[in-house]
């Protein structure tokens, strides 16, 4: 084994000096920084959109619930039962209306915040 040990120690591979290696590394790191900045920007935009959507959803839900309480629906029951049924349904479920409204607002907010994605080149 000594012979192979000696052979390996004598044949340590030589690396050619390459002054451009670190320049290339720096170039790639610049690209990484660019992507990082873009991703951070995208994330913060998403977070803001989510907060706005949540706030809008809550506000809309609260407003709607208040309206339903303050101004109970008097259906224009001239033409039939559909409106009457709808009114009854809303009346019995009005305390839960906040949830679908909030969910709708959040979804809408998320969809709108992702409308345009910029292409990033390495």
């Amino acid at each position, binding site marked *: 084994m000594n012979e192979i040990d000696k052979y390996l120690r004598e044949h340590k*591979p030589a690396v050619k000096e390459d002054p451009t290696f670190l320049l290339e590394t720096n170039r790639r790191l610049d690209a990484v920084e660019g992507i990082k900045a873009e991703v951070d920007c995208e994330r913060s935009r998403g977070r803001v959109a989510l907060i706005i959507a949540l706030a809008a959803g809550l506000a809309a839900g609260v407003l709607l619930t208040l309206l339903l309480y303050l101004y109970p629906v008097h259906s224009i029951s001239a033409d039939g039962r559909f409106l009457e049924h709808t009114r009854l349904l809303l009346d019995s479920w009005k305390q839960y209306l906040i949830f679908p409204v909030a969910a709708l607002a959040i979804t809408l907010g998320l969809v709108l915040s992702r409308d345009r994605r910029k292409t990033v080149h390495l």
Partner: protein
Amino acid sequence: MNRERFISLVRAEQEPLRRFLLTLCDGDAALADDLAQDALVRAYVASGSFLGLSKFSTWLFRIAYNCYIDHCRKARPDRTSVEDAIALPSDDASDASFRYQQLYQALERLPQKEKAAIALFYFEDRSIQEISAILGIPSGTVKYHLSQGRTRLKQHITR
């Protein structure tokens, strides 16, 4: 870790890193440098997770080894082997190629872990513990790979 600190650490480690990958790539300097660049980018992206529990070089070599493994997994079948390369005309600048051809030919026949263990132990003067941390295997297994690698190399290298 900020970029200046990262670059200063890399400056000190670039030569051993490139040599390690050159050995793993059986003397293909262009591929080795490409993998080294990939490893550095990965290391920079993950530098926030480097807690200093191991040496920076150990951490960097582990990332480089993983890059090499990833490359092998998706390696192109048309890669030129060392045997094919011998037939190609070479200039003197090509890594003093003749001197190393026999070594690279022999290394090419070794399994990845044996090759990496040999490269780290003989060419980078790493301890068994460090090799164990870089390759992610127990110390006993490192010793086994070293012994197997030496035996195989002895069969392939004729002086």
